[in-house]
């Protein structure tokens, strides 16, 4: 039997409602992206559909864990954060651009998810039932990224410059959006006992490693990622809206 959840102070409750809202509805967006990818490349339809089901399953298990803890996910917050991402996804789909969707989902969205889930696990036991849900989701996200890396490495084998053009084009808006969300949730991560700074750093580092795996040099990948995050970091520091 699960232990009863401890009562939450107001700031902690507000924070976890927003964070779980973002995780639950973010997983739904991830499922949507994989379904769109399934439509674009029939040869990957079965696998992308499987990934979509897995993402939808995460959303379901997170929601069950939230309810078990008496937490109502903040949908309005999630919708506001995710709206810009959805419009980008729709644009890439309208262009029938499978690879752009792969970078958005496989690199940018998964980097945020992996960094936050990894950072959440050490404090997960404050919210009974969440450890299992987030551990399973983390393993699945890494599984998805494994495929994404294999696909992109092969697709852009001997064509790293072409990948660079794609990544730069997709990243400009994608990082602005998802990196902006990372900055916007920093205070909520701190409020529940995580480190917003560590999570943001983990996302940047994780994203950099993905670029390296596909063919960027370490320094080049770092410059690329840090260069995109710096304007967001400065906005955060100055209390400005990141998007």
């Amino acid at each position, binding site marked *: 039997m699960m232990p009863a959840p401890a009562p939450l102070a107001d700031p902690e409750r507000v924070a976890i409602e927003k964070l779980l809202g973002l995780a639950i509805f973010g997983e739904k967006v991830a499922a949507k992206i994989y379904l769109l990818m399934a439509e674009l490349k029939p040869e990957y339809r079965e696998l992308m559909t499987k990934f979509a089901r897995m993402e939808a399953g995460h959303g379901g298990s997170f929601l069950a864990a939230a309810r078990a803890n008496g937490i109502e996910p903040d949908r309005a917050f999630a919708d506001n954060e995710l709206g810009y991402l959805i419009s980008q996804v729709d644009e890439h789909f309208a262009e029938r651009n499978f690879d752009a969707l792969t970078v958005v989902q496989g690199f940018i969205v998964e980097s945020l998810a992996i960094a936050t889930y990894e950072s959440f696990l050490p404090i997960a036991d404050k919210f009974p039932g969440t450890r299992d849900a987030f551990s399973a989701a983390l393993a699945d996200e890494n599984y998805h990224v494994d495929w994404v890396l294999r696909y992109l490495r092969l697709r852009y084998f001997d064509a790293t410059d072409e990948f660079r053009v794609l990544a730069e084009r997709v990243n400009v808006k994608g990082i602005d959006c998802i990196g902006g969300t990372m*900055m916007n949730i*920093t205070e909520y991560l*701190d409020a529940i006992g995580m*480190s*917003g*700074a*560590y999570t*943001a*750093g*983990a996302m*940047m*580092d994780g994203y*950099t490693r993905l670029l390296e795996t596909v063919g960027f040099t*370490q*320094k080049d990948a*770092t*410059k690329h990622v*840090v*260069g*995109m*995050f*710096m*304007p967001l*970091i*400065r906005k*955060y*520091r100055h209390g400005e809206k990141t998007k």
Partner: protein
Amino acid sequence: MVSSHTLDRVDSLFWTLVYRFESLAAVQYAVAVPELDTDAKRSFLAALAPHARTGADAFAGTALGGPVATLVASATSDDARHVLIVQGFLLELLGQTLYRTFGASAAANDTTRALCTAGGRAADEALALLPGLLAARIGAGDVLLQTFMDESQATLASLDALGEGIDEVFAERYGVKFADLMGDVAAEAIAMCVELGMDRRKFVAFLTGALMGI
């Protein structure tokens, strides 16, 4: 050899800014880390001196004065570990990036370009010596990372305000924003941290938090 092209207000402010930090470095290196008090550094400082203003009002009318004073205060110490981390590591990387970026700009005149070349060469030389000095004086891996975090926090926190001044004074002429410069500095710093055996993720997380001001 640096030519004596007359510098206008913007260029003069740039070299005045650089001079503040290079002259501080020269004093601190001589006292605490003589290995970094190189011929190239001394020669660059001598070439720079005629182009820099040194009075209390050197930055009058700009947003640079206060942030420069704060940053100089945060960087001032006679402790070898502090000098190695803040001056030898962080500010040398920032200098190297500034010289490379401003020197390559189409807006740079001959004097600025020549000074940037000399400054870049001196910074390259200092940074090449740094890994050995850090290993010998501080150590590697987690010990070095902890020292870096302890010694650099105040300087990293004060860089943001300097960035605003740099953008206000130099962005239009040189077409570069401080955020871009810091991207380059961070990339070089992260590469060096890996070379020095520091945990990359911890280093990136620290750097991110320090720049975010948390």
